[in-house]
């Protein structure tokens, strides 16, 4: 008896749902549906967090290796191309994964394209600086600061804004220290400026 009633109730509910879906909304109901749906649609920042953690780890590791290898070999710069290449491969694979993940906001799309442009700029800055015999770290810190600060402001995440300001300060500070220590500052600044907010962003409650 119970099962029969339950069945009838479910059928009735399904019919109600169907009728409800086709029912016309009043303007006020329409506005309510739009507002409620927009409120419920949250973009997650998982791919931004992944980007900060990945590049924070790789670039700070490359910077520290550069610093420690510098007195011992003329190939001290070699960690950079290898780790950057690995980073590009992982980033491309992750981008493919994210694009197949289903939902993606315009914000996430903008941030991924902004970092792509900044990544190309990083490469160009390093090439220009090395070709002209400069150490590129001041300029790479500046680019990192721009990307981090913009990301922080856009997604309204204070740790990223603070990191962006600190990276900017590190870029300015780097002109006052000897060239041989710039890679150490670079490693500390990128490590702290990317990894800490990256982990905080990963665990951020929406």
């Amino acid at each position, binding site marked *: 008896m119970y099962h029969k009633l339950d069945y009838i109730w479910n059928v009735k509910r399904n019919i109600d749902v169907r009728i409800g879906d086709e029912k016309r909304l009043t303007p006020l109901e329409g506005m309510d549906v*739009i507002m409620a749906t*927009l409120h419920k649609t949250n973009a997650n920042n998982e791919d931004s967090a992944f980007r900060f953690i990945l590049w924070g780890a790789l670039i700070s590791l490359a910077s520290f290796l550069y610093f420690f290898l510098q007195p011992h070999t003329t190939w001290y710069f070699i960690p950079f191309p290898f780790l950057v290449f690995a980073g590009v491969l992982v980033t491309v694979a992750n981008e493919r994964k994210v694009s197949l993940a289903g*939902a993606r906001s315009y914000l996430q799309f903008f941030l991924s394209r902004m970092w792509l442009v900044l990544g190309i700029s990083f490469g160009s800055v390093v090439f220009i600086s090395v070709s002209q015999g400069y150490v590129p770290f001041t300029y790479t810190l500046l680019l990192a600061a721009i990307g981090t600060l913009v990301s922080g402001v856009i997604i309204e995440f204070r740790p990223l804004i603070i990191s962006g300001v600190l990276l900017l300060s590190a870029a300015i500070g780097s002109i006052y220290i000897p060239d041989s220590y710039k890679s150490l500052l670079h490693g500390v600044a990128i490590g702290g400026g990317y990894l800490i907010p990256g982990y905080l962003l990963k665990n951020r409650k929406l």
Partner: protein
Amino acid sequence: MMPSKFDVLDPILNTPVRLAIMSVLLKLKQADFNTLMEVTETTQGNMSHQLKKLSEEEYIAVEKTFKGSYPLTICKITPKGRKAFETYVCSIKQYLHL
């Protein structure tokens, strides 16, 4: 039959689920079937039906692909859909004197 006061509102958009789908797609660049089902709190069958209607009107573009070996349906709003949504919002704002 007397025409309803709200007949002027786009009938394709003026239903709860289709309006909710369009609202999601306005905020997201793309959304998959499951995300849309989750946000609109509707059934799989109803979602398919509503997506088909929106797609037939060219308000959304539906791309069917695979994620691993599982089928994946990705939806995006089209320029025509965006325009229709904007018109719809303008109309309801007029009704509500906003």
